[in-house]
């Protein structure tokens, strides 16, 4: 049971716990606990954005899909979702920060002057976040089971302890700091591990060449992917990638676990610049991981797909590098779970129970109690359910993209969206997505891609927005509230800050050129000459 990997992972967990306890002692009020005093610099926002987004779903779920033969679609989704940071920070994130709220559901309540929409947003947040947290917890448990040989259920308990304690105690201040430590750890892990895995596969270009001629997973690295895996045609697989690329880009743009990070930024320029660096960080980490998972397939095609990176850490690299990689995968899971748990607690007290709990100290206590109860519910579900990391993660993401996506963007950019329109849009988007998910899950045949839960959910959401806004048009009060969002605060007009923010845009354009050259040289040309 006790081996070097287990010791390494336990040490990393203890570090997070100690950091959480240290930071937790500095919390004085709910503002510190919810939004870290609204004073976080770019590095902490970048760390928390990436760490709360990339979970075991990416490290074990996505890599499992790639290992199974789905390389190009997962890469396309990875790239598209990462660009969501830029669109999200410009079109939504900076306005949410400007509204000076404590939670994103509170933003909707303030914007539309409606307690009903605030509660609906909080409810959808809790449903999606619980699903996502369950996926992260199952991922952490799968990893721990592999490392220790302990039963899956025992590992579920360890996973629960690993993130619940410090999150409940330290709130956003602790989560921001531990997220950043964990982000740096798993970024390093991904960068360091790839050369070892490629070396074991015969070198980068040989590995790509071998995958192009793979017999065990034919087509794995070509544009159409392995046609025996998801859809029987290349067009079907690319369509799936484009749809889910949009889904995850919307998740990055508007989801509560991403936009809530912006509430903690010290100014709007921090929001904008963090988005650029976070996008590059997510893209770099995921692309390296996906290539690694494909290389593992060429080395050992007989693994359980979702465990290919765990096997690689234990068999394809020096022990110390393997420990770093496993600690990095664990960090990805723990960091997301801690953010999700804090969001649940904040939504419960700030959006559902704010009228009954008005004292600061009492609110802190209720927040912590809410988190404990939510984490126990997730613990119970994880305990009795087998791990389905990829499916559950995609459920959480799709629900938020359908219910929040159109309403969130229109809340800023549409003059015609009214309170009733926003409520109906969010509700129908949520119901459309969940109902189609359930029906398609029960359906035994191939579910057509054009009836995907996201497409149906988003269409129903838009219909709801239009009908609701016709039934009850925008009031003067709602109009004024929207106009307030477009007033740029004086302190955001510092020339040096604006120049720095503009410069990050040029860095990103240059990054786009590098991405093109990388894919041409490291993937397309070797595949075409394979």
């Amino acid at each position: 049971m006790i081996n070097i990997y287990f010791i390494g992972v336990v040490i990393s967990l203890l570090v997070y716990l100690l950091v959480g306890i240290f930071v937790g002692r500095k919390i004085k009020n709910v503002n510190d606990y919810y939004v870290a005093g609204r004073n976080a610099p770019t590095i902490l926002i970048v760390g928390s954005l990436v760490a709360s987004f990339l979970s075991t779903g990416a490290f074990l779920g996505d890599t499992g899909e790639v290992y199974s033969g789905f390389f190009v679609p997962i890469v396309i989704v990875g790239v598209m979702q990462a660009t969501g940071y830029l669109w999200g920070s410009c079109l939504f994130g900076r306005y949410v920060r400007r509204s000076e709220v404590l939670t994103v559901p509170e933003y909707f309540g303030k914007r539309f002057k409606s307690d009903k929409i605030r509660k609906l947003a909080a409810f959808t947040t809790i449903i999606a976040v619980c699903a996502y947290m369950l996926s992260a917890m199952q991922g952490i448990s799968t990893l721990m089971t592999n490392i220790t040989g302990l039963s899956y259920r025992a590992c579920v308990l360890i996973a629960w302890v690993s993130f619940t304690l410090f999150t409940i105690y330290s709130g956003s201040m602790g989560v921001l700091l531990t997220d950043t430590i964990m982000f740096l750890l798993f970024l390093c892990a991904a960068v360091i591990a790839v050369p070892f895995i490629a070396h074991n596969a015969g070198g980068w270009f040989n590995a790509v060449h071998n995958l192009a001629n793979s017999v065990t997973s034919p087509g794995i690295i070509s544009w159409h992917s392995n046609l025996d895996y998801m859809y029987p045609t290349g067009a079907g697989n690319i369509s799936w990638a484009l749809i889910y690329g949009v889904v995850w880009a919307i998740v990055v743009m508007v989801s509560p676990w991403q936009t809530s990070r912006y509430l903690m930024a010290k100014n709007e320029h921090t929001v904008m610049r963090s988005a650029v660096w976070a996008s590059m960080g997510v893209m770099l980490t995921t692309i390296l991981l996906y290539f690694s998972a494909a290389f593992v397939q060429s080395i050992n095609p007989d693994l359980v797909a979702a465990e290919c990176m765990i096997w690689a850490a234990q068999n394809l690299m020096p022990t110390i590098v393997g420990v770093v990689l496993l600690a990095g995968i664990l960090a990805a899971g723990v960091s997301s779970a801690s953010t999700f748990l804090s969001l649940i607690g904040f939504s419960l007290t700030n959006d559902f129970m704010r009228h009954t709990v008005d004292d600061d100290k009492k609110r802190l206590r209720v927040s912590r109690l809410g988190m404990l109860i939510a984490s126990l519910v997730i613990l119970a579900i994880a305990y009795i359910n087998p791990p389905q990391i990829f499916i559950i993660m995609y459920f959480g993401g799709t629900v938020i993209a359908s219910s929040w996506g159109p309403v969130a963007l229109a809340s800023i950019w549409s003059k015609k969206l009214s309170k009733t329109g926003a409520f109906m849009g969010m509700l129908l988007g949520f119901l459309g997505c969940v109902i189609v998910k359930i029906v398609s899950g029960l359906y035994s045949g191939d579910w057509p891609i054009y009836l995907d839960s996201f497409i149906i959910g988003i269409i129903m959401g838009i219909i709801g927005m239009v009908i609701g806004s016709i039934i009850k048009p925008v009031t003067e009060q709602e109009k004024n509230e929207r106009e307030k969002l477009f007033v740029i605060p004086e302190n955001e007009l510092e020339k040096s800050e604006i120049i720095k923010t503009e410069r990050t845009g040029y860095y990103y354009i240059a990054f786009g050129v590098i991405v093109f050259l990388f894919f041409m040289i490291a993937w397309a040309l070797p595949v075409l000459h394979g």
Partner: protein
Amino acid sequence: MEMAICVLIAGIVFSSGCFYTLFVKNEFGKKISGKEKIKK
């Protein structure tokens, strides 16, 4: 087709960078010149 996928991927990244840069210019660029005018 692999070449087309490369162009697609790079196009998505590149266009997002262009959108961001233009957005920042549009949002803050005017404000800078406006502020400078006030200062003068």
